[in-house]
């Protein structure tokens, strides 16, 4: 017997579909924090996730509900990894070349929304939804919340005038979309503050990014997705992790993708140089699952790990972190007030402009240009910064609460 069920409108619980970008793990963490706050405000709200690896791993660990259509999604993170070579990721072009993945995934999302079961879609840098609903406004279903931590594609110098033209053209299309169909984004959230916005224009003849963003977004403040540890917690983490008080621990991490071997090699080459002036130096290298440490040099006081559980505790408790320029990790370090050096990936406009601008505002971290920095320079930075005091601005702790309140308002 075929059986079907239809639920009367007033008998239905409120439901949200959360789409969390899988490019970088940071979205998952902040989206979980927002979802938790949202459930406090709307206890009856059911949240399903349309998500892909590696976001699903985080969600599954938290017992969240993953929509079965998720298994059809084409992998955005694998695409981005495939676009990286050495310490280089041209992320604007990588996003452009992701066009077929975005269409494929939008079609899946649209089918899910057309079942009519969701009151709202929450898209954290879900580029496909935002773009294609503006292109096909008749397809919009339910309310839509758009979230991002940067606004505006910016050209890298290596792309010359053609890239200036392309980024301006993409920005212009986005501005036209919003002007023509303000009804597509029921709520647009900027994860951060107006001061985090770069002092640039969208392109020749286009508005200033900050002016336009202030007009079209609400600001949540930064969302780390965790409570920064107290001094007591830090001390206890440090002893649990076996980091002694009389040693200077430098944690080097390059994320989970294969991108980063070049940076690791350069930093490791700096180790013996720094160790000479700082005998108490200990370097902990987290190579990630895709980099085999077997081919990397061995030194006394230098250790390699493929994976460490609770990496954030290592980053919080160490004396110096050396990382790439991704927003999540660097802002985590800003929040835990850890001294750090960060090396944005070459040609990555978001890391080189948007993230760097934000970190400068927080006075957090030391920007390093991978291209021109040699092991001697890294060694000198290690010596001067490991364990040194920092004067970072406090990172907000109420971002997720703010975002949830704004979302709850429209649900």
């Amino acid at each position, binding site marked *: 017997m075929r059986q079907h069920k239809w639920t009367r409108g007033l008998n239905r619980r409120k439901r949200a579909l959360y789409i969390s970008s899988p490019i970088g793990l940071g979205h998952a963490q902040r989206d979980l924090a927002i979802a938790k706050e949202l459930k406090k405000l709307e206890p009856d709200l059911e949240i399903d996730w349309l998500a892909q690896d590696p976001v699903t791993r985080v969600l599954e660990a938290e017992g969240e509900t993953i929509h079965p259509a998720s298994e059809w999604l084409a992998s955005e993170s*694998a695409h981005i990894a495939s676009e990286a070579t050495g310490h280089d990721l041209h992320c604007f072009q990588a996003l452009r070349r992701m*066009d077929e993945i975005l269409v494929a995934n939008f079609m899946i999302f649209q089918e899910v929304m057309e079942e009519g079961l969701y009151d709202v879609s929450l898209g954290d840098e879900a580029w496909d939804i935002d773009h294609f609903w503006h292109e096909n406004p008749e*397809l919009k279903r339910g309310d839509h919340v758009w979230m991002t931590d940067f606004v505006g594609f910016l050209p890298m110098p290596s792309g010359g005038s053609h890239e200036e033209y392309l980024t301006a053209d993409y920005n212009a299309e986005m501005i036209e979309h919003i002007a023509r169909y303000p009804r597509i984004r029921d709520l647009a959230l900027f994860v951060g503050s107006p001061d985090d916005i770069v002092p640039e224009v969208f392109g020749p003849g286009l508005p200033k990014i900050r002016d336009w963003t202030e007009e079209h977004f609400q600001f949540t403040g930064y969302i780390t997705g965790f409570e920064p540890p107290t001094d007591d917690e830090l001390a206890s983490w440090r002893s649990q992790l076996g980091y002694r008080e009389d040693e200077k621990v430098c944690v080097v991490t390059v994320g989970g993708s294969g991108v980063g071997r070049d940076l690791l090699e350069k930093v490791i080459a700096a180790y013996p140089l720094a160790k000479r002036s700082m005998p108490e130096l200990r370097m902990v290298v987290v190579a990630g699952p895709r980099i085999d440490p077997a081919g990397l040099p061995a030194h006394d006081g230098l250790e390699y790990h493929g994976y460490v559980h609770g990496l954030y505790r290592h980053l919080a408790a160490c004396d110096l972190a050396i990382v790439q320029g991704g927003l999540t990790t660097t802002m985590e370090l800003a929040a835990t007030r850890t001294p750090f050096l960060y090396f944005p990936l070459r040609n990555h406009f978001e890391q080189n402009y948007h993230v760097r601008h934000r970190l400068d505002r927080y006075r957090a971290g030391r920007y390093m240009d991978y291209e021109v920095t040699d092991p001697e320079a890294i060694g000198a930075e290690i010596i001067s910064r490991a364990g040194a005091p920092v004067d970072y601005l406090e990172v907000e702790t109420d971002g997720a609460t703010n975002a949830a309140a704004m979302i709850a308002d429209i649900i």
Partner: protein
Amino acid sequence: MRASYPDHVGTVEREGVRLGYEVFGEGDRTLLLLPTWTIIHSRFWKLQVPYLARHFRVVTYDAPGNGQSDRSVDPEIYSLDAQASYAIDIMDATSTAEATLVSLSMGSMWSLSVAAEYPDRVLGQVFIGPSLPITPPTAVRAESAEAFWLEHDDPQGWDKYNAHYWQTNYEDFAEFFFTMCFPEPHSTKQREDCVGWALETMPEVLVAKASVDAVNHETVLDWCSRVTSPVLVIHGDDDRLSPLSRARQLAEATGGSLVIVEGGGHIPLARDPIVVNRMIKDFASRIAVRQDELA
């Protein structure tokens, strides 16, 4: 990275020419996505394949001259009869008894001729931006076509559609041609993709293709009169390559229906993929329902 990779790839050979094909998904409802002018290859379906393959079995292939197929400069292999045979060869090689054919631009001629000559193999046809001599070309294109084999000094506009210009300034021609294909604002990626695919073949191939006798108006009308299965025509009203009148006439002559993309250019499947994907899927789903009813 591609959004989806084929479940099966293969080649067929006809008179020494090798053609590459790809099969996505499974089942007994097949969409055959035909090649178009060999200046681009089957990757032009990249925004359709992942979606359609979740609902149907999808077969794509490259005509001679580009993609995974041989770059022959023998005009014979580009003849209309040969092109129709390739479609049937690919269907045979992929065990596709019958299929819904989807074509772009010049592919419309191959689709129509297959539907006319092998009606039992074709369940329906979707034509996107059909370019075929069912009504005259635009005046500017007709004029440049007359001088196709003549050498111009510093040709501009459609005069670049010229055998000599192709062989001396191929990339510039491709830039011009795909700018004409995508008059919609903000089409940089679509143009770039097409120019990139154009550079995967060479002008000698296009010249060989252009040497083949053109199909005439009467033949096209004859094919149309023999079409027995459903037809959907999708056409931009800002198509600078093939006038909208052709789509109207094709829909009328085949008893099909026409969807006009207002503001759309010649390749809406790339510039407005979402709406085109949904139209193809709806059309093919209705055919599947009809098949079930007949079964």
